[in-house]
């Protein structure tokens, strides 16, 4: 958990808190979100029942360009791209098809893409933006917290902003004073909601 600056799970049942700490850790790790979350405070009270997660997010520059995962080698009228990481291969191919047309793009195997009769400078190709993972960041975070929260807690209210987020879930209608509780938990991590 070195990546998180602050990480606490608060629960009237100490053993439950320990398990939920483990679950939160595993889920954030699985979804590659440990780098994104800076502080995280989880409060669970199974008696009410309510689940609250509040935290802050790190600023991340995450634009992925062709040059980040591929080597662009111009050779005798064609440009060969050697891919080192397949994660963004599909959006890259889509981008090439739109820009150059399908007849100019060929993929002989998993890790190679060839561009024929393309006038663009290889450096410009390297600089093409393929994806922006921060677009799906909030979706990923909400999904992760849905996994962490106890499953029966289906009534949710979540606020995700650029720097802070709060996630409240319960199986009963959320109490009106839940905002005060969220503010209280934000105060614990030294933030204001």
């Amino acid at each position, binding site marked *: 958990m070195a990546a998180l600056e602050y990480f606490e799970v608060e629960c009237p049942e100490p053993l439950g808190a320990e398990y939920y700490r483990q679950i939160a850790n595993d889920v954030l790790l699985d979804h590659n979100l440990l780098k994104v979350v800076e502080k995280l405070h989880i409060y669970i009270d199974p008696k009410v029942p309510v689940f609250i997660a509040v935290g802050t997010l790190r600023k991340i520059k995450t634009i992925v360009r062709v040059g980040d995962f591929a080597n662009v080698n111009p050779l005798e009228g064609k440009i060969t791209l050697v891919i080192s990481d397949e994660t963004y291969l599909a959006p890259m191919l889509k981008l090439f098809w739109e820009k150059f047309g399908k007849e100019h793009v060929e993929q002989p195997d998993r890790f190679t893409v060839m561009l024929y009769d393309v006038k663009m400078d290889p450096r410009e190709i390297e600089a093409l933006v393929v994806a922006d993972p921060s677009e799906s960041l909030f979706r990923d975070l909400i999904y992760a917290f849905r996994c962490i929260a106890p499953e029966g807690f289906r009534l949710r209210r979540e606020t995700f902003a650029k720097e802070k987020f709060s996630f409240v879930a319960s*199986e009963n209608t959320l109490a009106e004073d839940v905002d005060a509780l969220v503010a209280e938990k934000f105060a614990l991590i030294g933030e204001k909601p």
Partner: protein
Amino acid sequence: MTLVPVTYKGGIYQHDIIMDLIEDLGGYIVQKHIIAAEVVLQCFVPKADIGLIRTIAKPLFGEVTDSPLVGTEIAIVSMSLEIHHLPHPSCDIAEYVRRIGAKSNMVSLARGPGKRIAGLNDEERDVINEHDLAVYLMGNFETCIEYKMPTLRRGIEVPIILCGGPSEEALRRITDPPFDGYVGNVGRFMRRTKESDQLDKLDEIVAEITRVVEKKRDDIAKDPLSVSPARLMDLIREKVPAILDVTSPTPLTVQMRGLRVKLPFDTFAAPLRAIEIEDGIKVGDVAEVAPSRMRDYILVKILPFSETNTVI
């Protein structure tokens, strides 16, 4: 002749010798798996002849191990089919139990999760009751388990083993009347069980299941069944050829007090009842052939000696 459940593991080469031997000795092969070049036979063999099977299996590098769960069908009751409970821990436990010979089915509840909202419907109740025992996999909070357990156990007649996040003492404290078995400190988690302490926990669950199964076997021994389920299985396989065309992994699932026949009830119930076991005694005389709540399968419940006055 006492039949004991064992697992035979060995190479595929000449494994038919072992199969013939088990059948000649009066044993029954419940399940046969061929995995690459390895054969796993789950079978019942006469207790006195285990030594002989070991001797004959030795040149073939075959191994015979005790597996008390062969011939049992166990329901692993998971609170839902969501990512919260699957694949860990529900599948991990179901798979581990399978390795030592049990036929485990996963039963996922439609409205299992939560505290106040948790419930069990009649179909789920009946399906669980068709098994030999049920393993309930609960969550991490004492409060929730205490609150929902009376609802989730209502109408369940088979022994239940309760697994949950709180310690075993806490689970015992919050449940009344007590369950047949408890395993504490194994609630909801989201990682694969591969570390040694996690595997120890799975072993603990298996040990608890074995203990409950042995107790049930002892109870059955007090009023023995009119016919052994494994014998009935062999008989059905011989007399109802349609079973050979069923593609399910275990077309005939042996249970402790009967068996599940994976054929449509309407078509096959009457021919099944009419099968003659021995000396004019038919299956219908010593067993109740009932429709199963699982698809349109048939459930054969073998009656005890006290009801039929015959043991064959």
